[in-house]
């Protein structure tokens, strides 16, 4: 495996074959050269990165370094980073400096990572193409005319283009897995409640989940280990013993490492709607899993087709309330001219929020408003239960569920911006894991003839993090899709790769 992964860099830094400062300089240099074409970063903190790198080298020299000391990473700009601008991709927070660190940010700090900057995203994480950002769209490293997916598009593109070996994201309806799929990397969403939401700027509180982007499942496990754990500041954070999600990956395995694994295949995931090239790549991946000893069983998730409508009631409802705090009084954008208090609110919010965010606030306000609550919000919560029940039933006959992460590969910028519903349907396979709170990962499993990546989604039961990461890892041991480098990134050789 090439050594510019989180795992590879961490061990070379620990052995002092490479200094954190050299690596940080190289990383900042690559960002300076390549990012103008991608727009993956909203903020780059060169000074801070070098300071953290020096501290990491110090810590390594004095043998008190964290497991990821000196490894450069980037955070999605939805996560609060003390002293650093945190915009959420919105004009509303264009110049907002966060006064504290998110729980997952602090965890990665403790592990010794070097934060190089904040990545671009759909405004308030509302989007599937990273085209709703106030800071402009992010481009797909595999083809600059295409979208990287969203909402965590900046993190996905940054990792895909080898600007950083790992990055954080948040996943509310697929915002980690879908861009990972469209950008040809791994995107991991853990069980809801395993990683704290404290310091994550809320979109839909009952669905928002912080997670990780990297090129390998092992790297995702390493980042997740540093991000996860109980946090008393989040009442939905689960108080359970910390789970080392590399434990199964590091266990010895024979020629058939997945012997006995039952892969559930919901026929709902393999319908007409899927792009034929995507369907072919998924079939090939499944054949590979059988090679590794797994068996496949048919399962049925009849209610899953309702994921999208359920999601587009629950998420906007929660968002309409969560985004009320952006009122121009205590922080963030405030309209320059206004007649009175109400006018201040109306103008501030009309100017500060983009079109998609406003649309979802309006949808959410409507479904909660007097006379519509039962028909929409309560109904959606009941159907959410039906979807959860489908999975409970399915888990009796399988250990993991597989299928395409997205029905189609990346699309051209601007292709779907006029049709919100077409855009929303991108998340048809990913939303269910958010509704049920269960973990899932998207890993690269092929390319289209046009050279666009295709992602495979592996879903597990709640708390099956270690298991699905191991399943993904074993696949990556037998394949090299994850090692492919986009041309625009390959044209540059990371210092980290030099012998």
């Amino acid at each position: 495996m090439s050594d510019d992964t989180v795992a590879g860099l961490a061990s070379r830094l620990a052995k002092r074959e490479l200094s954190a400062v050299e690596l940080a300089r190289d990383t900042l240099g690559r960002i300076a050269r390549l990012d103008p074409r991608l727009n993956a970063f909203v903020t780059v903190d060169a000074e801070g990165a070098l300071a953290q790198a020096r501290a990491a080298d110090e810590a390594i020299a004095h043998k008190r370094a964290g497991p990821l000391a000196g490894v450069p990473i980037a955070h999605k700009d939805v996560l609060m980073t003390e002293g650093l601008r945190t915009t959420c991709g919105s004009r509303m927070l264009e110049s907002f400096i966060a006064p504290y660190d998110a729980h997952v940010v602090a965890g990665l700090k403790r592990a010794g990572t070097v934060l190089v900057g904040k990545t671009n995203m759909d405004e308030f994480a509302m989007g599937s193409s990273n085209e709703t950002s106030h800071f402009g769209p992010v481009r797909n490293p595999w083809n600059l005319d295409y979208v990287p997916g969203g909402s965590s598009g900046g993190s996905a593109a940054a990792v895909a283009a080898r600007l950083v070996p790992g990055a954080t994201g948040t996943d509310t309806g697929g915002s980690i897995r879908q861009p990972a799929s469209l950008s040809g990397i791994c995107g991991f969403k853990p069980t809801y409640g395993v990683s704290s939401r404290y310091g994550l700027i809320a979109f839909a509180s009952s669905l928002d989940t912080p997670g990780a982007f990297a090129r390998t499942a092992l790297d995702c496990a390493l980042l997740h280990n540093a991000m996860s754990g109980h946090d008393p500041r989040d009442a939905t954070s689960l108080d359970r013993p910390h789970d080392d999600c590399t434990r199964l990956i590091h266990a010895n395995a024979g020629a058939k490492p997945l012997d006995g694994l039952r892969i559930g295949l919901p026929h709902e995931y393999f319908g007409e709607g899927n792009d034929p090239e995507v369907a072919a790549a998924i079939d090939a991946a499944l054949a590979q899993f059988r090679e590794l000893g797994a068996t496949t069983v048919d399962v049925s998730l009849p209610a899953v087709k309702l994921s999208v409508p359920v999601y587009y009631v629950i998420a906007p409802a929660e968002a309409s309330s969560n985004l009320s705090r952006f009122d121009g009084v205590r922080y963030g954008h405030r309209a320059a001219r206004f007649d009175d208090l109400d006018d201040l609110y109306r103008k501030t919010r009309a100017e500060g929020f983009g079109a998609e965010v406003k649309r979802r606030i309006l949808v959410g306000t409507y479904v909660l408003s007097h006379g519509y609550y039962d028909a929409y919000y309560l109904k959606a919560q009941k159907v959410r239960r039906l979807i959860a029940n489908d999975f409970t039933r399915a888990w009796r006959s399988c250990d993991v569920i597989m299928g395409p992460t997205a029905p189609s590969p990346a699309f051209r910028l601007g292709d779907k911006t006029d049709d919100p519903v077409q855009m929303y349907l991108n998340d048809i396979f990913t939303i269910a894991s958010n509704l049920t709170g269960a973990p899932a990962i998207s890993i690269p499993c092929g390319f289209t003839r046009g050279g666009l990546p295709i992602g495979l989604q592996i879903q597990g039961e709640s708390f099956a993090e270690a298991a699905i990461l191991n399943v993904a890892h074993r696949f990556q041991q037998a394949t090299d899709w994850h090692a492919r480098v986009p041309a625009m990134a390959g044209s540059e050789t990371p210092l980290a790769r030099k012998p």
Partner: protein
Amino acid sequence: MKLTLDDVRRIAHLARIEIDAQAASEVHAKLETIFAMIDALQAVDTTGVEPMSHAQDVVLALREDRVTETDRRDAFQRGAPAVEDGLYLVPRVVE
């Protein structure tokens, strides 16, 4: 359920988002397509189904009654749009 242009104005007011007539009808058109998709829910039989408002079936964890926060007013107000004497300023509030 039919979403009317008046509904759009009503919810825009509830959400405190300024919206002119032009924008209102554009938004109305987009919301109609969204609700056409959402209305698939109405066909589902959910009699006797318990609503699900949390991803995990847990109960509330409580904190002990202790003061843990210190005064960070200056840090918090550094980026505030309008502050005086430690107060956030807003247009005259009427009761």
